[in-house]
């Protein structure tokens, strides 16, 4: 699974720290998701999508093999 968190963050002009604080996780978690090292839970995915006012499918995209 890939995601557009980094891009969405750039559009909203947010740092990793800003986003982490807004959704209540550590900065490491944001960083790990952006570098595709971590697949978030459904709760966290929904929180991120809500933060960017988008649907989950617009932020998180399934890849071949998922």
């Amino acid at each position, binding site marked *: 699974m890939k995601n557009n968190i980094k891009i969405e963050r750039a559009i909203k002009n947010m740092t*990793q720290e800003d986003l982490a604080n807004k959704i*209540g*996780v*550590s900065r*490491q*978690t944001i*960083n*790990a998701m952006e570098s595709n090292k*971590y697949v*978030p839970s459904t709760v966290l995915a929904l929180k991120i999508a809500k933060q960017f006012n988008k649907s989950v499918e617009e932020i998180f995209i399934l890849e071949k093999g998922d």
Partner: protein
Amino acid sequence: MKTRFLFPYKYKLIGLIMLVPSAIIGLFIIMTDYQLPFLELNVFSITTQAFGGDNSHWYKNNITDEVVAILFTIGALLAGFSKQKNEDEYITVIRLESLLWATYINYAILILSMLLVFDAGFFTVMIFNMFTVLIIFILRFNYMLYKSYKSLADEK
């Protein structure tokens, strides 16, 4: 995020304070057989004495090693299973993966020891093996946390 089965964050420090001195004293005890004289006590045991033929559940024992081992074990449990300051689901995953990894490594070492170490030497291995799962877990978990923290340096 709600995390179950973890101690509050402040217990991590308490754990480390118990863990480090008892590890040093424990190693010293294993190497020198040192015992504190005032810890020579009559102790109750649920089993009867294996050697000595006596059926009594009470016998004289120096409990220096027991005290140190218990301090170390509780310290290691607290240090390993207290919440991080910023505990979240990613850290929980790192913790569980480290525990799995530590279990594999621990038993790999034990299997090697079964093949290569015998008699009294193996008894020493067993003493260490009581604690190595926790030690390997704590080292691995903190190393992975350090790595994930380190990878933040080049990001904004």
